[in-house]
């Protein structure tokens, strides 16, 4: 798709839960939109979050190492990175619950270390860990949470009903939260994060551990929220999720930002348009070296990132079995692994 282009459609969905309950229907119109080209140059768009030289230092470790980024109003901005890269720490600083130790961080133009209440009242947070209140039902969870924002009772009840409908949880209204499935808990946490009608929604791994149906429903809802003008900041380990949802993203590692940009640009820049995968044999290596083509070794496979996949594949087919050569489009996962390596973390 070209920048600024829009693709729309409807999807039928149906989800069955243990116990026989079921969610089904036709989704609202879903639009997938690539970010307009102007995002890249224009500076007039209001920035919701501005970080400059941001640092978070713990006793023996620099978790966030002098990073800078801007999140613009109305965009979906992603933080990707291996475990321990500093994503969650950055999120916690934005949420004003973990004070920065250096640099500046402004949310809605206010300093996070001095305007916590003002910022937090306009923020919705979906934490990584499920921290719903086990002493209450689904509906009461929303009401109790609304009270923390000082939302009047009647208003809170109205919003809670609407949010249960929005996240398809009406049937579970009076069920204790420990009886909910993982997907329902996640949806309730998102509903809870929306109780104060936030302008900025922060999601730390919103679809962790969910089945595909639940993930799709959540993606759809996040898209709805963006369409209403909300700004979304999220972390995720699912790179397809990032590619699908984020207008722009950063990839972090060891507390630093490695790259920043729209997913499509990052793929083009760091992985090329396509990947040719081929089994690793001396003949293949010899041919690639002869052609002067760069390649990466991955286990017993070999990857060539290229904008001319057909030419590369044709050359390789001459030296090996045809079923050993695969051509596929490059993905964000390729970018991620190239930049952060394949070594296991933690």
């Amino acid at each position, binding site marked *: 798709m070209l920048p600024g282009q829009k693709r729309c459609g409807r999807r039928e969905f149906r989800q069955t839960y243990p116990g026989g309950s079921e969610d089904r229907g036709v989704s609202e119109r879903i639009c997938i939109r690539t970010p307009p080209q102007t995002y890249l140059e224009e500076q007039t768009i209001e920035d919701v979050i501005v970080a400059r030289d941001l640092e978070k230092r713990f006793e023996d470790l620099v978790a966030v190492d002098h990073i800078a980024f801007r999140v613009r109003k109305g965009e979906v901005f992603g933080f990707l990175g291996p475990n321990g890269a500093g994503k969650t720490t950055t999120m916690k600083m934005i949420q004003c619950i973990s004070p920065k130790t250096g640099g500046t961080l402004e949310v809605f133009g206010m300093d996070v270390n001095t305007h916590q209440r003002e910022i937090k009242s306009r923020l919705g947070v979906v934490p990584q860990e499920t*921290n719903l*209140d086990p002493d209450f039902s689904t509906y009461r969870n929303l009401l*109790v949470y609304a009270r*923390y*924002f000082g939302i009047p009772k009647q208003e809170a009840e109205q919003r809670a009903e609407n949010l249960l409908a929005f996240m398809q949880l009406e049937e579970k209204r009076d069920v204790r939260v420990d009886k909910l499935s993982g997907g329902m808990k996640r949806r309730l946490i998102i509903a809870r994060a929306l109780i104060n009608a936030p302008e900025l929604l922060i999601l730390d791994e919103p679809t962790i551990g969910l089945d595909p149906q639940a993930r799709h429903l959540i993606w759809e809802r996040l898209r709805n929220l963006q369409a209403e003008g909300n700004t979304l900041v999220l972390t995720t380990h699912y790179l397809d999720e990032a590619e699908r949802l984020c207008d722009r993203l950063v990839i972090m590692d060891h507390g630093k930002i490695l790259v920043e940009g729209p997913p499509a640009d990052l793929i083009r820049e760091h992985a090329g348009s396509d990947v040719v995968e081929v089994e690793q044999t001396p003949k293949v290596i010899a041919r690639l070296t002869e052609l002067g083509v760069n390649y990466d070794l991955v286990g017993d496979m070999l990857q060539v990132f290229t904008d001319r996949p057909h030419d590369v594949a044709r050359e390789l087919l001459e030296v090996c079995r045809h079923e050993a050569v695969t051509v596929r489009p490059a993905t964000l996962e390729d970018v991620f692994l190239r930049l952060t390596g394949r070594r296991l973390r933690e």
Partner: protein
Amino acid sequence: MSERLIDITGRVKSVWQRNWDAFLRTYQVNFIPPFVEPVLYLLALGFGLGTYIESVDGIPYPVFIAPALVSISVMNSAFFECTYSSFVRMYYQKTFDAIIATPVSIDEVIAGEMLWGATRGMIYATLMLPVLLLFGVVAMPSSLLLIPFAYLVGLLFAGIAMCFTAITPSIDALNYPSFLFITPMFLFSGTFFPLDLLPQPIQYFALAVLPLTHVVGINRAITLSAYSPMNLFNLAWIAVATALFFVLAIRLMRRRLIV
């Protein structure tokens, strides 16, 4: 973060209210101890063991221990609410994390927990009073004062409890203050026998560091409707200690939770 000593606004009520709502949801269970406890103690100690003790300082034994029973119940309900229960909410349920993502500050969360612990102490004192009245071991109407005073006492023990909760490495380690602080206090604070039976140094020790001594002193004055100048000292000690532990608990919790 905020450099103020403590940062508390009216939002503290929403934290208190959360615990009140949860308490009401299970009120059947919560209302049993304050009715059953005084009956058991009065029957076993007051009227059982008490038949061998004619009187203590001229007071019938059941009447002597009645104010101690209220003191102990308020202490236990506030202390255990703000140790084990608060720790569960903080560590296992992540309720504190959920709340501080809203405009409620961590100071307000901790203050709300302590005010709730105090409320629980007051509820227990209130529920015990009719039982003690039935046994005819408390003077009226002066004993109505037990109720507001229970709030202050509850706040004192909630504050002490919250300090332990703030520094405990695990829920098991909370057994230390329970057995090494609460249990001795239960026995050696002029509860079941007068303090002056103990050797002089231990009496001073009790007055200096066992808060329950001061609580029992005042509660006994209230139920007998017989006050002494010593009660002023008791009250001053409790007021100062309550304020100190309240602030200390918040500061310790900030250190634990803000990273």
